[in-house]
Every structure is written in C-alpha cells, then in structure tokens.
C-alpha cells in the first residue's frame, strides 16, 4: 500500500500540505510559549525553576520597586516613538499618494531601502551621530547655531526615541501608504469644492477613513518599540529602565526565570488589552470598516 493510497483512504485534503509546517510551529513556537507560561507559575531558582506552583511571581513583579518606573518609561518612549512615526508617516504617505507624481517610486524605494539597514547599525549610528563631537553637533556648530556642543542628546530619552522612530518609520509609511490607496483624490477634491480647507479635509475626511490603519500602525509601532531592550542599553541614560530590558536582565543576568516569565506575560496581556480597547473603540465610533463607494 503506497503513500497516495493511504492518503486517499484517510481522505487528506490539500490542506494536509500545511501539516509539516504546522507541526514545526507547534513544537518550536506554541510549546515554548506554553512552557514560558508554566514557568511563570513556578518557583524560581537561579537559572532554573521548581515546584510548587505559585502566583507569587506575578505579585512580586507588580509590586517590585523597579517595575512601575520601567513601565512608565516604556509607555512614554513607546508612545513618543509611535506617535512621531505615525504623524510623520501620515505626512509622507499622503505626499506619496497625492503630491509625489514621478518621484513616488523613487521615494518609496528609498524608504524600503532604509528598512534594510541592520537593526543594530541604526542604534550604533545614532551613537556616533548624537555625541558631543558627532555629526549633528558639528553641523550645528558650523552653522553658528550653538557655540558649545549640545550634550543632552546622547544617552537620553531623546536618543532612544530617535532610534526607535528610525526603526519604526518605514513600516508605518508602508502600512499607511497602502491604506491611502482607496482614498481617491476625487473625495478630497469634492470636500475642497464644498469649501473645506486643508485642516477640515484632514479632520473630517482623511482621519476618519484612516482611523483603523492609523490605529493598527500606532499599536504595532508601540509594541515594537516599547518592548525593545537593545536601544535603551546603548542610547538611554543611566537608570533608563524599560520593560524589555527588565525581561532580558531577568533571564540572562539575574537568572530569575519565573519572574521574567511573569513579567513577559503581564506585558503581553497589556498589549492584548490595548488591541482589544482599540478594536472596541473603532467599533463604537463605527470607524472599523469603511465602505468605498464608486
């Protein structure tokens, strides 16, 4: 009995082609995540865990001295980076859609190319760009804007937000550019003919129709940036704790796996909550689905 006969007997559909990949993800994605979840309820040793099951990791994580500060910092930096990326991304995407003309493909390609620069390279670049003798200070000095180097730029929240925005911006532009495509210039021209100024067109036409993609671009960027653990290490000032960094330290330095696991799931839960709230908000405001008339 050969394989195809067996397959026919078991009535495998073509869906069976997914089986090897799905199996791989069960073993090396779902199982690790479940393991982490179980670990978050175990008692921590050093770089190990043991029974009994307990809720104390969640308790201890929430009440730990450093947690509140790290959360505040992560939220602040994540919101700043995501906010800047979305506002700038909206400007770029609308430019690409309505004003770019022949430059559209060139600028779009440039943005995609910038995406291919290595993640670590971007972080490193801001370190040599923002230092006392870095390119930014050199330019400011040459132009006569400042007489002595601006020293607050490097190792600060500013530097972290710069790098995080740099990482997030190309993704945001691509998402929003795609979202602008169905918004035909004719809609905006109609608004203009009816007397709507530029601001009114943005507030009453563009932003409502783009609410869902703007929301998902913002949240995606927020998740991406607030969980980052490398940028604050290299560009943040002393004591710039962030949640991602706290998770990393728990696992690789402190060896407190159970606490790290608890913090991971608390963070994940918070992100999930953000998505749920956004989804509900869009639904209540009836902005979740836009019907494009012809």
């Amino acid at each position, binding site marked *: 009995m050969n394989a195809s006969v067996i397959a026919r007997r078991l009535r495998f559909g073509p869906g069976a082609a997914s089986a090897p990949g799905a199996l791989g993800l069960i073993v090396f994605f779902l199982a690790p995540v479940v393991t982490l979840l179980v670990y978050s309820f175990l008692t921590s040793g050093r770089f190990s865990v043991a029974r009994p099951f307990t809720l104390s990791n969640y308790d201890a994580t929430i009440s730990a001295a450093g947690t509140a500060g790290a959360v505040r910092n992560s939220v602040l930096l994540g919101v700043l980076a995501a906010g800047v990326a979305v506002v700038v991304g909206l400007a*770029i995407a609308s430019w690409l859609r309505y004003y770019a003309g022949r430059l559209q493909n060139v600028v779009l390609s440039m943005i995609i190319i910038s995406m291919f620069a290595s993640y670590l390279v971007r972080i490193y670049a801001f370190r040599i760009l923002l230092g006392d003798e870095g390119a930014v200070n050199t330019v400011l000095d040459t132009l006569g804007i400042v007489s002595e180097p601006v020293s607050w730029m490097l190792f600060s929240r500013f530097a972290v937000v710069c790098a995080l925005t740099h990482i997030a*911006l190309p993704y945001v532009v691509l998402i929003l550019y795609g979202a602008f495509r169905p918004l035909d210039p004719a809609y905006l021209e109609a608004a203009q003919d009816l007397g709507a100024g530029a601001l009114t067109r943005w507030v009453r036409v563009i932003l409502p129709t783009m609410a869902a993609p703007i929301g998902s671009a913002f949240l995606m960027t927020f998740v991406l940036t607030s969980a980052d653990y490398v940028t604050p290490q290299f560009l943040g000032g002393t004591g710039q704790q962030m949640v991602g960094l706290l998770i990393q330290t728990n696992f690789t330095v402190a060896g407190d796996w159970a606490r790290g696991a608890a913090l991971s799931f608390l963070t994940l839960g918070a992100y999930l909550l953000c998505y749920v709230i956004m989804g509900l908000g869009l639904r209540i405001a009836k902005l979740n689905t836009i019907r494009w008339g012809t």
Partner: protein
Amino acid sequence: MRSQSGGRIQTAVTFAALVFLFAPLIVVVLFSFHSSGSLSFPFEGFSLRWYRATFESPQFRSALENSLIVAAVAAATTLVLGTLAAYGVSRASPRLKGPLALTFFLPITLPGVFLGVALLIYYVRLDLQLSLTTIAISHMVYVSPYFFIVARTAMDRLDPALEEVARDLGARPVEVFVRVTLPQLWPILLGATALAFMLSFDEFVITFFVAGGDTTLPVFIFGQMRRTVDPTINVVSSLLIGGSLALWIMAFIYAAVLQRRASAKKTEPPTAAASAVQTAGAPAEAR
C-alpha cells in the same frame, strides 16, 4: 489637489524624514573609510585600513560564516515548509482555513524579546545545547510568517481553473502542485526566500538569547558595541548595508525582467493554460 500651494507641509516633512532616515547610515558608511580611528568630524581622509583590519579578524570571519550558514538553512527550510503551508492553507476547506492561517501568522505578533526568552527556556528544558542549530531553528520560527504572508497572497491570486483543468485531465495532486502550481509561483517564492534570508541574517533580538557561545554577525557587532566605539563596527555595518542593498537591487532588476517577459507573453494568452493541459495530458512523462 494638484494646486501649487497644497502639500507644502507634506513635502517638507517627507524630505526631512529622508534626511533623518539616511543621515545615520551615510555617517556610518563615511566613517568606515576614515583614515584615522576617530569617529568624529573633521574627516581626515579616506583609507581602507579598517576594512583590511576587519577582514583579517578571525572573529569577524567566523561570525560571517555562521551568519551565512544560519540564514541559508533557515531560508531553505522556510522555502520548503512555508510553500507547503501556504499551499495547504490556500487550498484547505473553509473551516480549516482561518485557524491554519492564524497559526502560521502568529509568531509575527509576538515581540522578539518574548520569543527569545520562550525559546531559551524551552531549549534548556529539552537539554538542547545552545548553538548554531538552536539559532537556525529560532530563525525559522521568526521568518516563517513573513514568508507565509507573501506566499499565501500569491497562491490565493492564482487562477484555480488551471489546477482544475490539470486534475480533470487526470493529473495526481502532487503532479498538479509540482507541474502546474509551482511553475507559476517560483519567482515570488524566490523573492520571499531572499527576504527570509535577509531577516535571518540581520536578526539579533532573538538570537541574543539562543546563541550560547556561537557568534553570528549581529551578535559580533553587539559585542563590539559593548566594548568600545571602534571603526571596525562601521565597516561591518557598511558591509551589511551594502549587502542588503545589493540583494534588493538584484531582486528589483529581476522583477523588472520578469514583468517585461510577462507583458511580452500577453500577446499569446493561452500559453499558461496550454502548458497545464500538456502537463496533465502527459502524466507518464512526469517521472
């Protein structure tokens, strides 16, 4: 909308953003050619000494080699499993479609640090030695959703009539897949494989946790960054930028060539259908 006054703010922001996106990269590349070890202005002249120093470093060479191996293994495995997965999902029964697609999409939704620590404790739990193998497995998990999204979109766009014709003419499912479905898709699959390769080559956030003693190129850069500010980091960074740029340009030219060929073929539309008929009509030739 075409009025001259309109869009001034957008234009200004766009060009400022391009400066913001490229200035850091240009500075990195510029200082990789610096003749002195200083990473600040004034620029004292060009030299290739840091490139020489980098290529002579055994740590750099082994990191590069490791990165190439890991990315090649991860991309090749993703090509095979991801293509099958995308085919299965796009041809699955409506009831299976949603949950299956979600499964393959799921890894992309987790922040890297989360995936990294989950895989770390899992490998330790299984007593798997942290090594290039664990890096490669982790990279497969990380790159697979990207590949899957591209491949599935392409599969969904295929004309199902071609496969039906082949089946009606007696081709077995495997033959339909290999001789009708794949030939239409391989350019896109190749592009998605290149994307998987690049994502793996550049991955750091997850790799950091699962690397053990083995060093990939991003792990090597991370180590250098921790110790000093050193011009060889600029060299490695510039090589990474140059490498991905070259790959991207190649893909771009390739896509343009394909497009031209496709539009040339449009004058004789039935070729694809005809080849499907031929394929199915001669199943004996398949083996």
